[in-house]
């Protein structure tokens, strides 16, 4: 008997948001009654630079279909330079993930200030649409379990 897939694809999306900008941006989006899909799970971090690359790997290992990191615009970091370091790390990490088979569309960095509620909701809608088009992710947790 064939088990039919009845449920439509609901992507799991993790958004790391900096406390000083995009997290407040998300709040603003909410209070301005702008919507973004509930598939996005926000994790508040004190700075985009706080996001250890391992956090992103962890999200994918636990089945995320997409991960987005939002921080203050370059030059506006609450701790002056955190986002510049994050920018380098994420560039290299995303490229590595792509190299391993987690295609690049599933990872993104977006600079969103506390005043940009509109940008926040637009970014999330767009990202979720992108993940929808890419479909289910490879299972990074199976990277070391070849099934043959």
């Amino acid at each position, binding site marked *: 008997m064939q088990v039919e897939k009845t449920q439509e694809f609901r992507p799991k999306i993790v958004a790391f948001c900096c406390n000083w900008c995009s997290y407040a941006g998300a709040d603003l989006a909410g209070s301005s009654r702008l919507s973004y899909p509930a598939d996005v799970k926000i994790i508040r971090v004190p700075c985009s630079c706080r996001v250890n690359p391992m956090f992103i790997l962890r999200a994918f290992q636990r089945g995320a279909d997409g991960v987005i990191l939002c921080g203050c615009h370059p030059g506006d970091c609450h701790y002056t330079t955190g986002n510049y370091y994050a920018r380098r790390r994420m560039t290299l990490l995303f490229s590595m993930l792509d190299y391993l088979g987690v295609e690049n569309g599933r990872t993104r960095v977006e600079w969103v200030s506390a005043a940009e509620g509109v940008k926040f909701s637009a970014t999330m809608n767009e990202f979720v649409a992108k993940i929808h088009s890419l479909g289910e992710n490879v299972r990074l947790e199976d990277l070391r379990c*070849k099934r043959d």
Partner: protein
Amino acid sequence: MQERLVERAKELLADGTVVRVLGWKQGDLGYNPEPAYFNSPEELKDFVYDGFCGANLSKYMIQAGKLEGNTLVFLKPCDTYSFNQLIKEHRVKREKTYIIGVGCKGTLDVEKIKKAGIKGIESISQEGETLKVQTIYGERELPFMDALLERCTVCKGKTHQVYDELIGAQEGEEAGPTGNRFAMVEKLEAMSPKERFAFWQGELSRCIRCNACRNVCPACSCLKCVFDGNQFDSAQKANADTFEEQMFHIIRAFHVAGRCTDCGECSRVCPQGIPLHLLNRKFIKDINTFYGEYQAGEDTDSRAPLTNFTFEDVEPGVVGERGRK
């Protein structure tokens, strides 16, 4: 060559420049010499320097630097990059080290000799461009070039980056056989994400988590590694959780990104033949493309790419924009 090194080591021990020598000694087989300390001229009788002395001695200098007195160490050209990088990271003591830069014609990979169908190896000697392999079935021959370690086929050059004197090498010597070290990385980049995932799954599934790649790596010199169990005072593999188990290679590659000199030790020691250099070289290639050519270990004062930034750095989105396949 070997005799000249032993002779010079004896002189340096005798005149008190150093109190110990760090080199390679004969292993239990004809092709597995191992790193060793020699504390007296007599002990030097076991010293070897041949094509199987691939082991990079730089990392051992972390320990040697903590011992009383100066240490003489022999470094091949590529090993000196690692030593420089360790100076930069304040892990080795330059002033307690006497470095003899040794000439290198390339180091050998016994697995390649075995793959060429040569079984029952007893000893291996080199004559010109040919390797003569004594086996229990008689003598076999193999071109030297066919048995080179992968890293030596893309040699960084024969120039020592740091040394006190050179033996068997000249200052600014030419590079050896140099292929494009990014050729395989490029090939992978040209595949589809699904194919790449399948490729890595095939490779990494073979890993037995022996930790040899980490233990040998000069960039992996953390006193407490994230992969060490934190409940007991020893490295406990049994403590590993699934996350670290599954992500081990990526995490390690990321930790050494920008510090990895591409010395090739990780791939050399992996008992499962996993091409770990393909992970490191991906980072190196990206760093070169995004932030300008960078060779870790070339100097002792530059800022490593990941502890540095410019206001004009590319945005992470660049990864997707670089002509997608």
